[in-house]
């Protein structure tokens, strides 16, 4: 079935919302508003250390969101990224802490593990035609179990600052003189730019969008849809692997059995940022901004007196709101 919205008869230019990428500006506006709002209401919020902390806790979510944008654009989803990243971190960390591997080797293992699971997800969805949410729900369970087994049920602490091999933590936060700088933000931004380029200017990205827009038409155009469909999930797995490194670097201990719920923040952020649940549209930059909305809410609400729990409620409501906007837009476009 042609999932494209067809407009009859007059051309439907002009409406700002109908332009692709317009949602990004709205989200950016929301981010700025939220930031200003919290800053006004709480002087503590404006402190540099707060900003640093927001950055720190956002890296792993942003990385997940960058990756999961791809399966979402194909009209699918990857629910294994949350428990997955914990698993990859535990696996790599175990090798570093208990087997004496150098930190860089552990990091590589983490990322490769992510790619492996991503390939598994892709195979389940693309070749075996399992519904994406179910297939990734299962790999979510599997990685949760695997992670715990890899670390023999112990929490793992990657090398802490000051000890040997802890250089990787500096990737994200570097101390020069007396001040700490959120270096991680630079890397994340570079990755965002890189993946935005991949999405918009390379075959992988182009065909990912094509699959999400109209899979049958893409097949008819002679494109190897099975391959590109798998690649979307491989990318998601790869970035879950990268996210695991960010997580290991920011948090002192990684506990098995955690991770469930991370994917909501990443997927929620992507949807707020403009990814359509039905596939075909979305942007990496938008996902980044969407995650910032969620992170700002998470960290900012306590500063105005609301406990972190409210953040969960509000995040849930904001997600519904974002989807409703998407649905309303589509309904409006479909009427004559």
């Amino acid at each position, binding site marked *: 079935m*042609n999932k494209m919205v067809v*407009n009859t008869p007059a051309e439907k230019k002009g409406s700002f919302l109908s332009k692709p990428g317009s949602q990004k500006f709205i989200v950016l506006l929301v981010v700025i508003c939220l930031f200003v709002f919290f800053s006004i209401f709480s002087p503590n919020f404006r402190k540099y250390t707060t900003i640093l902390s927001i950055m720190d806790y956002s890296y792993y979510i942003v990385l997940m969101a960058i990756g999961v944008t791809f399966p979402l654009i194909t009209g699918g989803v990857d629910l294994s990224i949350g428990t997955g990243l914990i698993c990859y971190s535990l696996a790599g960390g175990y090798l570093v802490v208990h087997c004496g591997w150098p930190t860089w080797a552990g990091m590589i293992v983490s990322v490769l593990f992510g790619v492996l699971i991503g390939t598994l997800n892709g195979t389940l969805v693309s070749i075996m035609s399992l519904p994406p949410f179910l297939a990734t729900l299962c790999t979510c369970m599997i990685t949760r179990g695997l992670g715990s087994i890899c670390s023999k049920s112990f929490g793992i602490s990657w090398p802490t600052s000051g000890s040997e091999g802890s250089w990787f933590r500096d990737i994200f936060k570097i101390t020069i003189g007396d001040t700490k700088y959120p270096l991680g933000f630079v890397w994340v931004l570079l990755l965002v730019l890189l993946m935005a380029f991949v999405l918009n200017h*390379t075959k992988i990205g182009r065909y990912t969008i*094509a699959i999400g827009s109209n899979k049958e*038409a893409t097949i008819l*155009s002679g494109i190897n849809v099975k391959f590109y469909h798998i690649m979307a999930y491989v990318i998601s797995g790869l970035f879950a692997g990268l996210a695991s490194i960010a997580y290991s670097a920011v948090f002192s201990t990684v506990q098995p059995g955690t991770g469930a719920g991370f994917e909501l923040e990443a997927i929620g952020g992507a949807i707020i940022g403009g990814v359509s649940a039905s596939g075909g549209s979305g942007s990496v930059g938008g996902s980044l901004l969407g995650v910032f909305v969620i992170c700002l809410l998470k960290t900012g609400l306590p500063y105005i007196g609301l406990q972190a729990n409210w953040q969960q409620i509000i995040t849930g409501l904001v997600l519904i709101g974002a989807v409703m906007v998407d649905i309303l837009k589509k309904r409006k476009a479909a009427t004559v």
Partner: protein
Amino acid sequence: MGDTILTMNEIDKSFPGVHALDHVNFEVKKGEVHALMGENGAGKSTLMKVLTGIYTKDSGSIVFEGKEVEFHNTREAQDAGIVIVHQELNMLGHLTVAQNIFIGREFKKGIRIDDKKMNEEASKLFQKLHIDIDPTEMMSNLTVGKQQMCEIAKAISHEAKVIIFDEPSAALTETEIEELFKIIRDLRKQQLGIVYISHRMDEIKVITDRVTVMRDGGYVGTLITKECTKDDIINMMVGRVIYEDPKTESAVPKDAPVVLKVEKLNAGRMVQDVSFELRKGEVLGFSGLMGAGRTETARAIFGADPKTGGDIYINGQKVEINSPQDAVKYGIGYLSEDRKRFGIVVQKSVAENSTMAALENFVKGLFIDKKKENKIAQDYVESLATKTPGVDQLVVNLSGGNQQKVVIAKWLIRNCDILIFDEPTRGIDVGAKNEIYKLMNRLAEEGKSIIMISSEMTEILRMSDRIVVMCEGRKTGEIDISEASQEIIMNMATREIG
């Protein structure tokens, strides 16, 4: 016109129960525009699908540029130089026009897709074809007509030697059709072979060199456009002998009450200012070619799709129908043309499907009275002669004709007074067809009123008391059975307004 570039010899193709192509011959010369015409089901699409590799033929040969060929998929046909512009758009709405045209064969600068070059090439292509479309525009923002122009441009950009246009002008405006014809004349000058499938007589006369007519899967003949008349073509399209006696006069008295009146119904492009009346005990045939808008009209009346204007009167009273629920409440039943998708509930039994529209009548307190349900299902299985081992048989296991009977039973059990049958005998064998005809006549005699949408001329002439003809969303004719004939109906079905 130059030499022959493509010859299809004695092409034969059968599907289970249907002999779709019966030793068909078709040839195209270089530098000619060759029209391919025929009623719905004549085999035009099937023939082209065999040519472009979507179907494999059972026997016969295809000779292209002097060599015998067999394509296994559209890609192969495309690479060889045979391209088809489909009727249904196969576009990627979330990409731009240029990206759509070059999908699968993007220009690259290393790893980077060169969108700039694609936009330039697309612009050049559009300029050559005198089409005014911005290649950077998002596909979903274009009108249907413009999307079709893009589809055409895409086909042409494949350096084709033979291009097949399948009902290309259906969604185009007057000006766009002019542009299309200019493009086609250009292509003809370049010695391409062009196949033009259409039912629009006036266009055929203007743009084509020869006309080949198919009927019931067989090849009827080829005429030179300049030397033939519209009637010649129509005669070839419908010139069959009808063995079953067509109805000669209406069974309904002239003063029978009007049970359904539809006034200026509007629902998008496919339903424009449609007005008609249905009288009690009448079988009103709805004829027309594919894409005429008959199903869309029926669905709008039934509330299945939203309408943008018009009024519906039942037994003289104006009614508001905004959903199938409303329609059913007012006693209208709709048997949709796509049985599998819209008619039967696949995982449920004959009995369960039968009571789907009237379940309230079979409920005792909270529970379904399965005994009562089974009994009535059994009653209708017998009266409709539905072949099933039992009423608890899953309906998906019955053959097409029997599935149809279950759906009919559903509406009868609901006791609808107005029944809309959309292609009621499609995909059903002759024996079951006759049973359904007998049933429809019986229902009409009992005072029910039936609208029968059908693409089969014999069926229309056999069953209808009156016939309404539609073409491209408008009602183009209405005629009593006593004055109707195949030629007259086909004339109305191919007439255009505006």
